[in-house]
């Protein structure tokens, strides 16, 4: 199939990265904690890539991305727990079901809100994010398993480095193929000018809905991998602050750049977690002073992100 032939370079590179990382883990150069962070970085990259499709490529500003990440996480947590999933091959379908659930809800919510324009869309997605947060806080009223504001505990640990790596690379390839096809081109047309897009026959609403659904699907898979990595979920992991994390990664990496999202995701996770290790305990919270300052400096230096050429 052409899919693999076309992607041969990326696949080769991925195998090399995989072997190197594996070797580092194997020889015990890094702690368990670093291994966990590496996995987390992959997850963050995947979810951010989803937002990049929605916002970076299609221009639909969303402040509720973490809600879809959370939906994927809770669906996977619930299914793997009630079915006591232990086998990775039983887990893979659940991963995709979790992604599909987030995608479906993105689709349904997208129907009314994607007709709105920029600032209204921001408010609507923010509202949806808040709604999901409140629902998660009260989720124990539907079923005790969810744990409500106490958090969802006892989720089977199923996310391995191999699984996360293969899934993320596979989804990056699919995203790449979509972006570099007529659909990606239409998304970029819409971001540039919706009226002009309609004038060449693009059904702008359905294309925006497609981008939004797909972006939420990626967030959902990311959330699912997260749930089965940390084995504990709390509603506060999926609130507006998390949505803003994803936004920052997309903007820092460069709107509409897959490589940018990958680098920015690695830097972001590496930085936040790295500072946690490096800084003495008393000043760890000062991270939230350094990080905004760094962001401001970065945006002054490269206003269009790390990977996007500045416009002239």
């Amino acid at each position: 199939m052409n899919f693999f032939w076309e992607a041969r370079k990326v696949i080769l590179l991925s195998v090399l990265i995989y072997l190197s990382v594996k070797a580092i883990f194997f020889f015990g150069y890094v702690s368990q904690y670093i291994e966990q962070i590496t996995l987390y970085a992959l997850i963050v990259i995947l979810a951010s890539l989803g937002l990049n499709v929605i916002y970076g490529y299609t221009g639909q500003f969303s402040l509720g991305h973490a809600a879809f990440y959370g939906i994927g996480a809770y669906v996977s947590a619930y299914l793997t727990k009630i079915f006591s999933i232990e086998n990775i091959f039983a887990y893979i379908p659940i991963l995709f079901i979790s992604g599909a659930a987030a995608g479906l809800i993105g689709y349904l919510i997208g129907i009314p809100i994607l007709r709105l324009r920029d600032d209204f869309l921001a408010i609507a997605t923010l509202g949806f994010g808040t709604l999901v947060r409140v629902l998660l806080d009260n989720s124990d009223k539907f079923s005790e398993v969810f744990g409500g504001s106490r958090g969802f505990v006892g989720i089977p640990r199923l996310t391995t480095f191999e699984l996360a790596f293969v899934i993320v690379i596979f989804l990056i390839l699919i995203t790449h193929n979509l972006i570099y096809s007529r659909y990606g081109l239409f998304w970029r047309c819409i971001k540039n000018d919706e009226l002009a897009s309609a004038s060449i026959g693009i059904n702008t609403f359905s294309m925006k809905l497609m981008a939004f659904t797909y972006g939420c699907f990626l967030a959902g898979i990311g959330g699912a991998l997260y749930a089965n990595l940390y084995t504990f979920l709390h509603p506060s992991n999926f609130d507006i602050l998390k949505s803003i994390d994803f936004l920052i990664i997309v903007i820092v990496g460069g709107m509409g750049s897959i490589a940018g999202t990958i680098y920015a995701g690695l830097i972001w996770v590496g930085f936040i977690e790295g500072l946690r290790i490096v800084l003495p305990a008393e000043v760890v919270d000062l991270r939230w002073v350094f990080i905004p300052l760094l962001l401001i400096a970065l945006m002054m230096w490269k206003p269009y992100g790390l990977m996007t050429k500045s416009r002239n």
Partner: protein
Amino acid sequence: MNALEVEGLEKSFGGVKAVDGISFVVEEGKTVGIIGPNGAGKTTVFNLITGFYRVDRGRILFYGKNITRTQPYKLPHLGIARTFQNLRLFSNLSVFENVLSAILKKDGYNVVSSVFRTADYFMKEGKAEKKARELIEFFQLSGKENYPANNLPYGEQRRLEIARALALQPKILLVDEPGAGMNPREVQDLLQTLREVKERFSLSIVIIEHQMGLVMNISDKVVVMDFGEKIMEGTPGEVKKDKRVIEAYLGEEFI
């Protein structure tokens, strides 16, 4: 055969009648000019035909098919393409992508082909790229394929917008003030290009112009509008001599 028939078109904005009972016919293969002073309602007529504004009253027939109040994105599939008075290019996309997007909209492949890179994907992409290059060459933009559209000089942006519209292989092309903001030399070039377009792509054209010069040269028929109404219709020769037209244009830099 009539490519386009407009019957009693009306449109008001907050009590102001922008278009007030306009009717005209575009015969297949002919070029019709619409002229009139600023604010006469010319652009509004285009926006009504192409569904960007909702028609208050009246009918629009395209090859006999009623297309009144059709959503804008459906019209290119029927064979109607347009340009905008205030240029609407995909300004951050390259010249090549501006044209390619329209071709791939017209003749594309599905999502599965995109994701799995099937034979259909490569075939359609290849065909589209070839066609895009031909169009870009025809509009004398070769060598600038990779420029962002907004880096082109104004006159070339106008040409690119027409190229993008023609990439849809329309049966009728609606162009709104293609000469606006151009110098006389560029206008002459454009005129020549439009003549060639007409020959090569064998289509009907409706062209709005504020200045009369451009339209008179290439139109088979001219519709004159003022205050939302059609004040006359005729061959360029007839229109030039008409008293009402001269009156409408009094105080304007005319002919």
